[in-house]
């Protein structure tokens, strides 16, 4: 086995949570609010549905192939070479997601805090940290995450509570003024992030009680969606939907409004710092999944050698994929949902269909022995 460590279901749930939550809180509020206005929170809650679907599919497949990751059972189901191609597709999307994540966050840092610092400083340092973490193994990432998740969630909660005096709840009304259509349209973007529970396909076999992972993942997804929705609700209540969709990073603006007695104020930097930690975990998870997947596709005995090159690739993609911040946000609005729909919905469904067809029609048995 490539990975000897084991994580608990709780840890894997926490990893899924941070994976979904870390960057979505940056990007999603503005994008969803620009389409669904004050109903953005509803769009976010709706967007968990594809996430649940994916999680269900992955758990089902994982249950059929205990001890195997997506990359391994793809080969079992599809055959050796198609399976490897399939695996490479997923390695690709994971690298792409890692690159997008890094770029989004670096752009945020650059826009809001250090406009003069070259972007490469942020991307390279983040990727470097992730590479070190990935080399240290899944257990280490999961343990770190137990600290970092506390930090991220606690600070977000704190910020939302402190901003309460600035709320104007009337901004959230009327509910569903324009019907359900804009809400559905707006839920496409958060769905891209909710679909990131895809990494459960890799974490599942390394969890101590795999059958519990669905519950943990579902809890993670739900809590991420609720927190995200709470963030959006807070932003809308403070700024009104029109202003939120104007902002590039509404949560950042939102933290800036906090002023309690001239003392509890000006802590957007601290919030930024906690987000760095969250994004670092997310990046590590994706880099880990990509590295492990690639190692499994190539049939290597250890995944460590591919981590560094993949890290460099992520750095290259960071600069290659996006010219500017507009491409990122517009891409996430229009192109990304379609691309990710293929990876998160179509391809997993394909695996399920082929499994069912082979089992029911050709009488294969996929109940593999536990490794």
């Amino acid at each position: 086995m490539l990975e000897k460590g084991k994580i608990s279901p709780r840890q894997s749930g926490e990893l899924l949570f941070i994976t979904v939550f870390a960057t979505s809180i940056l990007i999603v509020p503005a994008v969803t609010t620009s389409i669904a206005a004050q109903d953005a929170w509803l769009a976010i809650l709706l967007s968990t549905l594809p996430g649940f679907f994916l999680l269900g599919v992955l758990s089902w497949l994982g249950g059929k192939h205990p001890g195997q990751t997506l990359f391994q059972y793809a080969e079992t189901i599809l055959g050796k070479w198609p399976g490897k191609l399939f695996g490479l597709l997923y390695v690709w999307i994971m690298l792409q997601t890692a690159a997008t994540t890094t770029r989004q966050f670096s752009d945020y840092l650059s826009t809001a805090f250090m406009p003069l610092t070259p972007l490469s400083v942020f991307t390279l340092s983040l990727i470097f940290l992730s590479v070190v973490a990935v080399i240290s193994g899944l257990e280490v990432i999961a343990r770190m995450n137990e600290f970092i998740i506390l930090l991220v969630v606690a600070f977000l909660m704190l910020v939302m509570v402190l901003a309460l005096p600035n709320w104007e709840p009337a901004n959230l009304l009327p509910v569903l003024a324009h019907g359900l259509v804009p809400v559905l349209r707006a839920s496409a973007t958060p769905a891209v992030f909710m679909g990131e529970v895809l990494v459960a396909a890799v974490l599942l076999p390394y969890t101590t009680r795999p059958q519990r992972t669905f519950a943990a993942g579902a809890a993670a997804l739900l809590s991420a969606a609720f927190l995200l929705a709470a963030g959006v609700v807070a932003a809308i209540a403070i700024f009104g939907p029109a202003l939120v969709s104007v902002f590039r990073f509404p949560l950042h603006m939102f933290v800036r409004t906090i002023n309690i007695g001239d003392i509890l104020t000006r802590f957007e930097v601290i919030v930024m710092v906690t987000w760095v930690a969250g994004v670092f975990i997310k990046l590590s998870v994706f880099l880990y999944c990509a590295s492990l997947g690639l190692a499994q596709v190539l049939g290597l005995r250890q995944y460590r050698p591919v981590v560094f090159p993949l890290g460099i690739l992520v750095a290259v993609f960071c600069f290659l994929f996006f010219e500017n911040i507009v491409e990122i946000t517009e891409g996430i609005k229009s192109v990304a949902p379609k691309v990710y729909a293929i990876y998160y919905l179509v391809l997993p469904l394909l695996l399920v269909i082929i499994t069912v067809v082979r089992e029911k029609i050709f009488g294969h048995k996929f109940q593999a022995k536990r490794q």
Partner: protein
Amino acid sequence: MIILLALLLAALFLIAIVETAPLVRQKHWPELAAFLFLWGLSSFLAVAQFVGVNLPNSMRFFEKILP
């Protein structure tokens, strides 16, 4: 610019040295091959990106093929 390029190359080679040494010691040849291939690819891309060569952007590709 030249200094930065030199630094980049130095970093890339340092990574290569650090990673290959244990692989050679353990005689993990497939891993070594995979590493060298990936390392070559990513280093090439990184240097090309740094020098300013226009590389194909897969995002554009997605934008084209998707409705």
